[in-house]
């Protein structure tokens, strides 16, 4: 038998295992990969985590509530392209300028959020009102969303975002660019909502047993609609950040991030069955993937092997997480 104190300590580690794995992995890379151990690289890891990290917020909320959203990647691209077209100065950008110049910040942000919210609301309409399967509805949105990017841009890129926006990608606080801080603050805010407010509690309840939640008088449909809209708007935010970082938008911007986001969410401890998960864990998952990618970027191995290694590392990271079960069993 283990003493209660020790048990509590071990439980704490297990509950936050992704974070400990993250630290371990970063430590290993710092030893093994030349140039890895430096503030600048850590800042890059955090910066690169911005987009998947932001997308993961909305996706986590939806998955916790028992739904799926495959559209987020395309929604992000769509938002990025819309503000690219409106505010970028060259390429397909119309270069709209506002006076005073800084007005472009709230306006472009509002546009990006609105674009996302509209797609989210569309998804919600099909899922909640027409009772269609969320997977297929959002898969369709994944296809038509990207299609809309191509249609709007004619496949071309927009470039040169206004300086007032670029500031977010260039200015740094504690070595980390502002766009990354936006994502971190959003993560913390929603982590709080999930853990401390009735809204968050109700998402967990719906994800655990929607019938029970419904019978308890929780307005399941309404909450579902809100969550889809939130997920869309947050994907819009990711698009805004991505357009700022890229200083524009290309038609294939963000391709492949959907899978990464799912991976981060699952690594972060959210169950795809719904009802289980916390956003801080998810953010650790995002950082974990980002540190692996950065290590690969620095390792200087033949390009042909990067994907192979990425797959193996994801597996290894999750394998560590699985030890949890064994340890828990030993504890009993």
């Amino acid at each position, binding site marked *: 038998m283990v003493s209660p104190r020790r048990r509590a300590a071990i439980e704490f580690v297990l509950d936050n295992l992704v974070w400990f794995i993250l630290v371990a992995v970063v430590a290993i890379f710092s030893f093994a990969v030349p140039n890895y151990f430096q503030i600048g690289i850590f800042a890059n890891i955090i910066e690169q985590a911005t987009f998947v990290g932001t997308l993961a917020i909305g996706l986590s909320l939806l998955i916790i509530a028992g739904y799926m959203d495959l559209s987020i990647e395309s929604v992000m691209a769509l938002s990025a392209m819309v503000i690219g077209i409106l505010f970028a100065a060259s390429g397909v950008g119309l270069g709209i300028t506002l006076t005073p110049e800084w007005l472009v910040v709230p306006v472009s942000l509002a546009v990006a959020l609105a674009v996302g919210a509209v797609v989210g609301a569309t998804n919600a309409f099909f899922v909640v009102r027409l009772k269609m399967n969320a997977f297929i509805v959002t898969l369709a949105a994944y296809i038509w969303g990207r299609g809309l990017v191509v249609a709007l841009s004619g496949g071309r890129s927009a470039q040169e975002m206004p300086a007032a926006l670029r500031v977010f990608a260039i200015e740094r606080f504690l070595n980390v660019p502002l766009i990354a801080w936006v994502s971190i603050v959003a993560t913390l805010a929603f982590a709080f909502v999930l853990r*401390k*407010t*009735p809204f968050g*509690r*109700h998402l*967990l*309840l719906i*994800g*655990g*047993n929607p*019938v*029970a*939640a*419904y*019978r*308890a*008088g*929780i*307005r399941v449909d309404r909450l579902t609609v809100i969550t889809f809209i939130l997920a869309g708007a947050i994907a819009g935010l990711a698009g805004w950040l991505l357009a700022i970082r890229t200083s524009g938008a290309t038609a294939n911007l963000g391709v492949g991030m959907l899978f990464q986001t799912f991976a981060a969410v699952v690594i972060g401890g959210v169950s795809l069955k719904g*009802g*289980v998960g916390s956003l801080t864990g998810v953010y650790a998952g995002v950082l974990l993937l980002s540190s692996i990618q950065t290590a690969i970027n620095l390792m200087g191995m033949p390009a042909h092997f990067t994907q192979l290694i990425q797959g193996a590392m994801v597996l290894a990271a999750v394998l560590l997480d699985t030890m949890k079960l064994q340890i828990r069993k030993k504890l009993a």
Partner: protein
Amino acid sequence: MTAREPLLSLDGITRNFGAIEALRGITFEIGKGEVVALLGDNGAGKSTLVKIISGGLEPSGGRLVYEGREVRFGSPAEAKAAGIETVYQDLSLCTNVDVVANFFMGREIVKRFLGIPILQERAMEAATAKAIADAGTRIPSLRTNVEHLSGGQRQAIELNRFVHWGGKLVLLDEPFAALGVEQTRRGLEMIKRIAAQGISVVIITHIMAQAFQVADRMVVIRQGQVAGDVRTEDTTADEVVRMITGEAVKPPRAPIAEARTTGPA
């Protein structure tokens, strides 16, 4: 003894599932502060009826008159708003969260900071602990997820959380099926107590002793129809069992039972 006003009248309620006619015209009344035992064989339609009253299922036909007005509850939330609390036969707990979260499901205690409602975990835990202890149930930790609890522990949460909210009508669908001897005794007492406060209770059970201990009146359902509606004092367990199994002829409908002048036991 004084005659009671009806709180809820069911009038010809029917319900089909595809080709199956689960309810084929149910008509009876529930008086204010009355305890009605709803009895019947497996598959008779008791739970279906409860779900219709509590807003979880739409009737295929018939009328519900509640507090004198015809109503149609579109969701459990609406029925709850009208003062109807329900304990379902198939437990309605979220096994992925802890006892406290289940106890306050949908009715969390909050405090607002800057307009944002914040969950008050301490207060909720204290209230839960008290209710569970009063019910005579031991639960190792209120912070364990419900999936780790025994069948009786789960039912105790479900049964006791509604007491918190008062209401006007309480529907209990086999609430003691998994409870221990002592817990059942306290549960029956609780029913008498709340009836004495003027709250009406419908209780479904297969144990005659329980029905006879608390009910003012017994309504027997057989294959989707009312097969008996008698005052407890006018019948016997054997007679009721015969109504349930269909061996007895249907006795005349009983009026709402009169209020007892004595308080709860």
